[in-house]
């Protein structure tokens, strides 16, 4: 009985550890690590061979393996965590910025299959298919491994570890860094454009998750004392994914619940089932059940049993958060009047900028082609500081592509981009954002499962808690800074008349409201040059005019703005100068009055 109980304790703790690590990667940071099980396997093997004597001297050498350092506990466990973390590094190239999430996932899945195949077939490394057995009991220097005391102590150690990891991960997830991770999960291209270093963030999460998985493997192998390729087939990762999806991705409590329900629950239930059918039937049905559970949960309860909770940040006490149900595209709910009195400059850095209209951003012979089709060709433009430059042109003229190249979202096929005298052609977009080039997107680009306020705060640069180590140092380190940032975001939210939505998920706002959130977010990123891709699309005409007025004021205050716009009335009123693109080339530039006098431009675009 005791033995059974301690077994459950250890298995439960191991599964909880594994699910917590995977939840950090998948549920929080959005990395679909389909090869997660290899990190657990690496930890188990490492703990085994570090604690075992040299292969030649052990048990007459009936098994082959490398190392064999005979280390005492806890060194093998520490080694397991380190190896689990290090193993993450080669995979960074797959989850780096450029690869589609599902392609990266497939790459990781295939890596898991490949490593299993290699370990299974190459015997001298880790004893091949037979695996490693007679791994010494880790706590034997303290307890007698035969007694029930040992079992209990082992269970206790495992559970304490799981609890510590739970609190550690929660500390990171609830920090500004955790916010950035969730932003990356919701929309990585946009997070990148706001200055988040995707590769860096993903690397730290993969290493952290790998260490936790490695540790879980070490705890497991120390208990069952053997480890073989059969224990870590790629499908085991799917079991862990099922656990997280069922428990609630993004919620660490959900991950623990999932661990208890799925890997542990399945194992224990089948133990008590009467034997029926041929021996392969029960395991086969288990797999079918896991497959079905994944599909059914994703359909009927995609957020799991314990969904990720909404973070209420707003400092205004007693406000009843408005639950936004996806509403139609109207801006009735926006308090347009409030914007009139609002001074944008209040939320911007107070460094006084003198408008001297020097060339701040310029391109030379910028060209972009896809599949041999040239979309932008030889565009040479100069953006002057402190001006609101408009960019117009018919559909397919290359406006958005040009904007994307200026922001670094796309890299040009040829040509150069200069910013304040520096060549930034090859500077990645997150660095450009940090230098002060911030863009918005034509399509909706809010972080759906972040609240409106979180969307805004997340864009603020130089947050003290927005790094892995900053988040580890805890709320005492970043709390005051974060509070100031939240207040700053609330101020601008008030100015746009959207205060009542502060704690609502941004994904539930109307189209016009989401545009506003996006503009606010970009402003909070402290841009020197703000690149707006059709910011007024879907925005009420009255509101658009007011925003236009404020953009003009921002320019007077020293900001440089480039705005791609379809609505000629808007460019007419606010933009000077205006660049006309057609078929990927610069057709003309100048004031709207000059352009109207230019017959070529009128023919290409302004007619009708």
């Amino acid at each position, binding site marked *: 009985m005791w033995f059974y109980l301690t077994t459950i304790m250890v298995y439960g703790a191991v599964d909880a550890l594994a699910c917590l690590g995977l939840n950090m990667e998948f549920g929080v940071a959005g990395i679909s690590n389909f090869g997660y099980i290899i990190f657990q396997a690496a930890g188990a093997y490492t703990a085994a061979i570090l604690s075992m004597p040299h292969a030649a001297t052990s048990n007459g050498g009936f098994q082959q393996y490398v190392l064999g350092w005979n280390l005492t506990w806890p060194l093998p466990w520490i080694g397991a965590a380190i190896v689990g973390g290090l193993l993450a590094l080669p995979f960074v190239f797959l989850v780096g910025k450029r690869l589609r999430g599902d392609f990266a996932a*497939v790459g990781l899945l295939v890596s898991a299959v490949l490593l299993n195949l290699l370990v299974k077939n190459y015997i001298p490394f880790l004893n091949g298919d037979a695996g490693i057995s007679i791994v010494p009991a880790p706590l034997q220097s303290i307890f007698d491994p035969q007694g029930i005391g040992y079992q209990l102590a082992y269970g206790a150690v495992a559970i304490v570890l799981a609890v510590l990891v739970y609190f550690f991960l929660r500390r990171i997830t609830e920090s500004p860094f955790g916010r950035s991770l969730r932003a990356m999960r919701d929309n990585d291209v946009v997070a990148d454009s706001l200055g988040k270093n995707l590769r860096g963030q993903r690397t730290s999460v993969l290493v952290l998750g790998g260490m936790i998985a490695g540790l879980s493997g070490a705890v497991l192998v120390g208990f069952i004392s053997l480890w073989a390729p059969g224990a870590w087939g790629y499908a085991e990762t799917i079991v862990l994914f099922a656990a997280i999806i069922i428990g609630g991705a993004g919620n660490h409590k959900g991950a623990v619940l999932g661990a208890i329900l799925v890997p542990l629950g399945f194992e224990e239930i089948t133990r008590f089932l009467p034997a029926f059918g041929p021996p392969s039937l029960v395991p086969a049905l288990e797999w079918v059940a896991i497959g079905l559970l994944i599909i059914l949960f994703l359909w009927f309860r995609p957020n799991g049993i314990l969904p990720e909770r909404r973070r209420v940040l707003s400092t205004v006490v007693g406000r009843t958060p408005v639950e936004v149900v996806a509403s139609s595209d109207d801006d009735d709910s926006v308090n347009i009047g409030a914007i009139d009195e609002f001074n944008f400059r209040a939320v911007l850095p107070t460094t006084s900028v003198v408008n001297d209209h020097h060339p701040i951003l310029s391109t030379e012979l910028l060209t972009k082609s896809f599949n041999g089709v040239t979309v932008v060709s030889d565009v040479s433009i100069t953006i002057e500081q402190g001006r609101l430059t408009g960019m117009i042109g018919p559909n397919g003229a290359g406006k958005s592509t040009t904007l994307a190249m200026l922001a670094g979202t796309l890299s040009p096929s040829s040509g150069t981009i200069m910013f304040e005298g520096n060549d930034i052609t090859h500077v990645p977009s997150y660095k450009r954002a940090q230098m002060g080039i911030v863009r918005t997107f034509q399509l909706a680009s809010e972080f759906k499962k972040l609240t409106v306020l979180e969307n805004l705060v997340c864009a603020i640069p130089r947050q003290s808690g927005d790094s892995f180590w900053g988040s580890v140092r805890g709320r005492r380190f970043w709390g005051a800074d974060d509070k100031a940032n939240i207040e700053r975001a609330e101020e601008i939210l008030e100015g746009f008349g959207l205060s009542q939505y502060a704690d609502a998920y941004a994904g539930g706002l109307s189209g016009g409201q989401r545009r506003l959130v996006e503009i606010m977010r970009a402003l909070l990123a402290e841009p020197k040059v703000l690149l707006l891709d059709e910011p007024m699309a879907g925005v009420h005409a009255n509101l658009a005019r007011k925003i236009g007025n404020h953009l003009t004021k921002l320019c007077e205050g020293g900001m440089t703005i480039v705005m791609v716009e379809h609505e000629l009335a808007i460019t007419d009123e606010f933009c000077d100068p205006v660049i006309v693109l057609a078929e990927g080339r610069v057709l003309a530039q100048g004031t709207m009055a000059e352009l109207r006098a230019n017959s070529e431009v009128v023919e290409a675009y302004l007619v009708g």
Partner: protein
Amino acid sequence: MSSFGFGLITAAVLAIATVGFTMQFAVTNVLNLAYGSVMINSAYVTYYFNQRGASIWIALFAGVACGSIVSWLLNRFIYTPFQRRNLIPITLVIVSLGVDLCGTFGLQGIVGGSYVSYTMSQGHEFHILGMLLSGVQLIIFAICAGVLILIHWLLKYTRMGKAMRATSANPNLARNSGVKTKFIISMTWIISGALCGLAGTVFAMNSGVFEATSAELYIVLLLAAMFLGGPGEPYGAMLGALVIGLATEISAAYITADYKEVIAFLVLLGMLAFRPYGLFGSEKTL
């Protein structure tokens, strides 16, 4: 030299499978990781009729029909409803893994875990250009080559093929230009499903013995071939399959059979890392 011959047969089977897989990806943007389980289920349907006295070449059609129907059902009742919910793309991949588990292990639950093989004669042996090939292998090769030519004809010279290519390039534009994309997507799943069923059966024939989980590793070869030629590119898939098929069989002969898939893994990882849009594609394809 005979490993070259085996390589050609493997490549031909792989080409059929990969073309179907890549067509599904092209029109619906789904990496259908359950493809291998549909293949093996189709192989078993063929086996069922073969066991009841039908000639393998007749039973084959049952396998093809199975692949076609199951794929259509999958798309109609699982993938399309999930896609309509506008979820993140990875959700569909996870769903397809769930389907794969149900398909593979559901089959294993029904047929048990033992190996089976078709009742068929291997035919005469032929020496062609120094390669020793059995009659069955030659027929497999001929079927695959014929089907590939048929696919080529379909894509290049029929309205349906043009509509498929248009749907894969830009579904919205295709719809606005009067293509009935819903119908085209259904047809694509029916046709690609038929390829999947055919591939499953000839794969089972070619391997001699098989069981419910035999196609587990096959998805890796498929993915490697697809990414080599560029995801969503049927002609790229054919070329990719040729390279991967030859490479696995030749490396099996010259290095060791235990590691024969390793080369496919390495190709796949290399492509994902450096050219995820295929050897000849460029980034807009994604």
